[in-house]
C-alpha cells in the first residue's frame, strides 16, 4: 500500500532560518505518528505545511499520491486539531462540529446523525447545545477532536492537543485518543514536545531537531537505540558517559570510558566509528545495576561510588551514585529491588551496566 502522506525533501525558510530543513517523511494509512521535538524545532511548521498553512520553499508534499502544492487548506483531505482548540465562540458545540459538514454540502439529516455520532465518540452527548465558553478544558478538547474528525479526514493533525489539560486528565485523554484512533482507523499525526505523550500514544515517533528529522522508529527503538546524543537525552532519562572508541567492527563498537582507563565497554552501534574518535556511552537509568560493596574490590565491569541522593517515586526508586571520577550516575530500581537493597545516602555501592543495557552513540 502506498503511503498516505509523502513528504519529500521539504524545506521551509523564515528569513535566514530554515524552520524545516530538507525533511523527508512518510505517513502510512491508519498509523499513529508522533512528531517529537523541543519547541522551535520546526515540528509545528511541518504540520502546518501538511495542513496547507504556508507553502514549502522546496520539496513536495503528496497526500494520497496527489501533489498538494496548489491545493488550498479547505480542499485538503486532512483536518487539524489546534493547540488552542480554536472552537468558534459564537456557535454551539453542535454547530462547531457541523461546520465542516455544512461546508462539504452534507444534508441536514445526515449532518444531524454525524454530529450525534461524533458527540458519542468523544463521550459528549448532551453537550450539543452548549457554547464553548461553558465547557471545561477537557470538554473543549473533546469537542475540538469531534469537530476535526467529523469530516472523516484521512489524516488528523494534532497540535499539542493535550497541552491545556492538567496532568491527570492528560493521561486519561491519551488513552482515549488512542482508542478513538483505533476505532476509526484514521491516521493521526501528533505534534508534541512531551516525550511521555509521544511514547504513550504513538506507534512510530519521528524526533525532530533544528528543522531536521533526527531519528524515526518505534517508541522502543527510539528509547533503546537512540541514534544520537540528542535523541538519547531528549527521550527519557539517560546517563551519558564520555568515551573514546577503541575499535569498531561489524556493527559492534568498543569504547573506553573517560577517567576510567581500564573500563572498556562493548555494544552495538548503528553507524561506523573510527578508533580514537570521541563518543558517548548511553545507559538508561533502569539499566544501571547497583550492588552493595562487600568490602571486596569492584567486580570487572563495575564502578565503585557513593549514594548521594535517593528518591522514592511510587513504583520506582531513583538513586544517584557519585563515581570516583566525580560523574553522578542515575539508577532507577524497581520498588521491591530498592526495598531489598535498602539504600540510603552515603552508602558505598558498585554500579554496573545490566545485560544489553548500553549503547555507544555515533554522534
Amino acid at each position, binding site marked *: 500500500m502506498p503511503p498516505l502522506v509523502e513528504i519529500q525533501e521539504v524545506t521551509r525558510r523564515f528569513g535566514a532560518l530554515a524552520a524545516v530543513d530538507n525533511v523527508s517523511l512518510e505517513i502510512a494509512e491508519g498509523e499513529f505518528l508522533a512528531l517529537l521535538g523541543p519547541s522551535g524545532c520546526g515540528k509545528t511548521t511541518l504540520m502546518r505545511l501538511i495542513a*496547507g498553512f504556508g507553502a514549502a520553499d522546496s520539496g513536495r508534499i503528496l497526500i494520497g499520491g496527489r501533489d498538494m502544492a496548489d491545493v488550498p487548506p*479547505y480542499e485538503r483531505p486532512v483536518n487539524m486539531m489546534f*493547540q488552542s482548540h480554536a472552537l468558534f465562540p459564537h456557535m454551539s458545540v453542535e454547530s462547531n462540529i457541523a*461546520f465542516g459538514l455544512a461546508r462539504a454540502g452534507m444534508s441536514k439529516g445526515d449532518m444531524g446523525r454525524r454530529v450525534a455520532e461524533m458527540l458519542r465518540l468523544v463521550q459528549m452527548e448532551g453537550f450539543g447545545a452548549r457554547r464553548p465558553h461553558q465547557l471545561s478544558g477537557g470538554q473543549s478538547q473533546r469537542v475540538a477532536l469531534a469537530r476535526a474528525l467529523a469530516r472523516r479526514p484521512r489524516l488528523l493533525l494534532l497540535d499539542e492537543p493535550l497541552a491545556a489539560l492538567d496532568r491527570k486528565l492528560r493521561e486519561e485523554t491519551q488513552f482515549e485518543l488512542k482508542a478513538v484512533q483505533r476505532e476509526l482507523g484514521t491516521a493521526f499525526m501528533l505534534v508534541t514536545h512531551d516525550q511521555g505523550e509521544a511514547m504513550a500514544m504513538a506507534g512510530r515517533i519521528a524526533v525532530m531537531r533544528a528543522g531536521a528529522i533526527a531519528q524515526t522508529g518505534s517508541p522502543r527503538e527510539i528509547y533503546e537505540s537512540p541514534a544520537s546524543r540528542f535523541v538519547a537525552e531528549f527521550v527519557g532519562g539517560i546517563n551519558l558517559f564520555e568515551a573514546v572508541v577503541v575499535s569498531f567492527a561489524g556493527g559492534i563498537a568498543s569504547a573506553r570510558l573517560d577517567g576510567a582507563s581500564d573500563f572498556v565497554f562493548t555494544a552495538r552501534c548503528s553507524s561506523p566509528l573510527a578508533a580514537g574518535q570521541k563518543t558517548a556511552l548511553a545507559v538508561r537509568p533502569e539499566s544501571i545495576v547497583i550492588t552493595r560493596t562487600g568490602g571486596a574490590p569492584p567486580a570487572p565491569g563495575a564502578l565503585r561510588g557513593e549514594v548521594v541522593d535517593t528518591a522514592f517515586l511510587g513504583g520506582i526508586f531513583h538513586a544517584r551514585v557519585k563515581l570516583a571520577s566525580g560523574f553522578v550516575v542515575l539508577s532507577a530500581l524497581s520498588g521491591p529491588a530498592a526495598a531489598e537493597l535498602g539504600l540510603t545516602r552515603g552508602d558505598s555501592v558498585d554500579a554496573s551496566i545490566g545485560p544489553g543495557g548500553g549503547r555507544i552513540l555515533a554522534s
Partner: protein
Amino acid sequence: MSAGRGSLVERAAIVLPFVWLAVFFAAPFLIVVKISLSQAALAQPPYAPVFELSEGLGALRAGLRELSFSAYAALAEDALYLRAYLSSLWIAGLATALTLCAAYPLAFAMARAPAHWQPHLVMLAIAPFWTSFLIRVYAWIAILRDEGLLNRALAGIGFITEPLHIFATDTAVLIGIVYSYLPFMVLPLYSALARQDPALTEAAADLGAKPLACFWRITFPLSRPGILAGSLLVFIPAAGEFVIPDLLGGSDTLMIGKVLWSEFFDNRDWPAACAAAIVLLALLLIPLALWERTRSAEPVGGR
C-alpha cells in the same frame, strides 16, 4: 474590611467618580431639565422662573409650581420638530451605515497588517484629530463646491461637463459625517478584529470554508461587538450634529442640532431648545439600552 486611612482612601476612590459624574453630568443635565420645564421670558436669563436660593424656601416652592410641560407640548404640536427628529435619525443612521462600510475594510487591513506596523496605522487613523474639526469641515466646502476641487478634477478628466451639486445638500452632510466620524468606527472595529485568534479562521479553512465563508461565518460575526460600539460612537453624536449640517448642508437640510441652535440663538426660546435636547437624549438612550442588553445576553469574543 480594613479601618483607618486605608478605608478612607478606598472610600474616596469610590466616591470620587460619583462626585465627578454629579458635577459634570448630573448637575448640567438637571439644569437643562429645569429650563425645559420653564417658560420663555424677555428677561436675563430668558426664561422664568429663576430660582434664587437667597429668596428662601417659599420663593422656591412658588417657583416649582410655575414649572410646566408647555415646552414639550409645543414640541408635540409643531410638525417641524417631528420631521427634524426623523430626518436627524435617518441621516445619522445612513451616515453610520456608510461609515461602517468605509471603516470595515480599513480596520480589517489594519488588523491583518504585520504586527510592527499596527501601532503606526492606529496613529494614522487618528491623525486627523491633530487638526481642528472646524477647519477640516471647512476644507470639505472647498472640495465639494460647484467650482471646488472635486468638480474641477472630474471636469478635468472629462468625466462630467456640468458640475455636480453636492455642496449644500444632504449628500454633503453625509460625506462630512462619514469623514469626521470614521476614526470612531475604525478604532473599535480594529480592536475587535485584532483581538480575534487567527487560529479561528485557520480552523474554518481547515474545515473546508473558502475565504469568503471564513469571513462571513467567523470573522464578521465575531467582530459584532466592534460594529456595535463603532456604530453607537458614530450614530449618537451624528444625530445631534450641528456643525456639519450647518456648514455643508443646504437650507432644506433638517437636523435637530440646527433646530436647537435656532431656538437658542434666533428665537431665544431656551425652554423649547432644552425640551428638544431632552427628547433627543431619550431617543438616543433607546439604542444604548438595546446595546447593553445584547452585550449582557451574549458574551462573544475571540481569545
